[in-house]
């Protein structure tokens, strides 16, 4: 009887409340670094300067009091020469004056550089040729792969093209790192993903593998956005398991 009463209580039949996920939040304190202490002073001074423009012209240099002080001359490592030498150098206007106003490191006469245009063009051609060679190689390997696996070339191309459209390549990745994410998928007949497994998943949480993690996450996002994948109507047994190798190196190189 007691058991029956307890079971008939309303809280026993109520559906569980959908509580928001409890996620630990890391609390960080920020020091007050924003304010540049002397800046308001500088602004005030600037305003004063605007009012008294005529006087400003004759006023002193940037670093207020200390700038007026004559600092000790820095001893140079090969400073065996007497002061006379140094005075001579200061008095040499040809060396100093043009350089004072020059903010560029390129001397004007050097700006016009007309040499080796042909060589440049040749170099550009060479680079292009090398690039083309590389891309050709890739295509060939894809074709080989296609024959070996059982998907026809057009089936593989359709799948690849679909994923190209879904994959936002993280452009911030380093282009010279060897980043390759291999994902094994188990598919349903309609192309929806039953299971996805990152084959090198242990790299995801290793220190120093942030880029790999970012790349893997982007690849998984692409697959979720893309599904159902464009799979052939026949031959389910062949493609029910499939491995996708995400490699952005070429794209990142530009």
């Amino acid at each position, binding site marked *: 009887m007691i058991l029956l009463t307890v079971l008939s209580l309303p809280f026993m039949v109520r559906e569980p409340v959908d509580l928001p996920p409890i996620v630990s939040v890391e609390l960080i304190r920020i020091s007050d*670094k924003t304010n540049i202490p002397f800046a308001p002073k500088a602004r005030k001074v600037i305003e004063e300067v605007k009012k008294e423009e005529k006087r400003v012209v004759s006023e002193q240099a940037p670093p207020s009091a200390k*700038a007026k002080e004559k600092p000790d001359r820095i001893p*140079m490592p090969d400073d065996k020469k007497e002061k006379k030498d140094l005075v001579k150098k200061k008095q040499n206007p040809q060396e100093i004056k043009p350089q004072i106003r020059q903010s560029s490191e390129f001397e004007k006469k050097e700006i*016009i*550089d007309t040499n080796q245009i042909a060589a440049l063009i040749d170099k550009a051609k060479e680079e292009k040729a090398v690039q083309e060679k590389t891309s050709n190689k890739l295509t060939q390997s894809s074709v080989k792969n296609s024959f070996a696996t059982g998907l026809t070339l057009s089936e593989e191309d359709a799948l690849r093209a679909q994923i190209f459209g879904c994959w936002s390549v993280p452009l911030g990745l380093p282009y010279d790192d060897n980043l390759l994410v291999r994902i094994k998928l188990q598919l349903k007949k309609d192309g929806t993903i039953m299971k996805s497994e990152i084959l090198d998943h242990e790299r995801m949480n290793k220190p120093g593998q942030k880029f790999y993690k970012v*790349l893997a996450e982007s690849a998984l996002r692409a697959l979720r*956005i893309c599904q159902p994948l464009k799979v052939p109507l026949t031959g389910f047994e062949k493609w029910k398991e499939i*491995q996708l190798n995400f490699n952005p190196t070429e*794209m990142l190189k530009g």
Partner: protein
Amino acid sequence: MKKIYLIILLTFFKINLVHSLIEVDITRGNLDPLPVAVSPLHVDPQSDIINEIKTKELGENISAIVEKNFKSTGLFNPLQKDSFVQKPDIAHLKPRFEDWRLIKAQALITGKVLIKDNKLKVEFRLWDLTASKEMLALAFTTTPTNWRRVAHIISDKIYERLTGEKGYFDTRIIYVSESGPKDKRIKKLAIMDQDGANTKYLTLGNELVLTPRFNPANQLVTYLSYFRNLPRVYLLDIETGVQEVVGNFPGMTFAPRFSPDGKKIIMSFAKDGNSDIYTMDIESRLVEKITEHSSIDTSPSYSPDGKYICFNSDRSGLQQIYVMKSDGSDVKRITFGDGLYGTPVWSPRGDLIAFTKVRKGRFYIGVMRADGSGERLLTENYYQEAPSWSPNGRVLIFYRETKSGPKGEGFTAKLWSIDITGYNERKITTETDASDPSWSSLLSK
């Protein structure tokens, strides 16, 4: 015997299975920036009202800065808020992922703001909408006037989580503010946040200032100023405002720059009509000569590990870039292309050297590997130079002069940024004309 047959059979079957696995290489994707929804941060109704910072609008203002930062990277596409489907406070508790996916967002940022007892607490969460899970959750406390920095720090944290590399938003840029005609140019030292906000002028413009450079280790700046045509190297502490003259060198000095540990200044120094590279220990003021050559050696820049120095020299006849060990030994020329190379700056990541190249009267900003290979010219113009790296080595800031008048008379100098892919060139808004920018390290580490 039967067992052996079975094992052989199973092994054969397994190998067969392995061979049958279809592999497809995905080597291309779209270059579209990642669509991100930045929900306005929810302001807790129990917050104290501070008019100075507009408490009620604080959530929207913070999210607007985050959005602007993201957009400036070229890596993210913040979506229009009109299309948002959930209120900020509810989305922050638990987003309806399927609804957010409808507007094609792939990541969502939500947050909450509370001001109590003159303390600002900002909490934010980053959600992966395709996986329906949270990626990051952080909270910050600070003084309310620091709210802009909080927005930049949030941007940095999200950027790091989504790209794998440190952000560069909680940083400053120091530059030379310019005004007046070219022959009577007034140059002041100015500093601003990386997004162009909070501009402050640090000098009055009575004297010529050149080449301000941040210390990569702290908020110290070194720059050159001329007093009665004599160059002086100054040190300026941005936090305290204290300035000091570190060198009154008996000759011409150029391009002072800090070593990676911030303990030395490296610069070129002209003596007897010849320019060589020197270092000076900031504490002891001891000067050491690094190069000894009859040619003009200038623009030295350390590698981030401090072991190497890149610089430009005309020792081969034309101005080219060289790399040597930090003691001056083992000098190697790394550029052999046509044209002139200058202003080499080693990336904080150590992988690349940025440079200015001049060819046929046109100026290029480019990058190459530290051995000189893989040269890539990122941008080309009538006149531009002085690249400076963002602290994460992803973006370069430089200045560009363009003719301003319709007939080509007059000119303006402005700051521009470009990332190392060359995809994302942007003009940085400054109050005046600007040149010689230098990017600080992250304020919050």
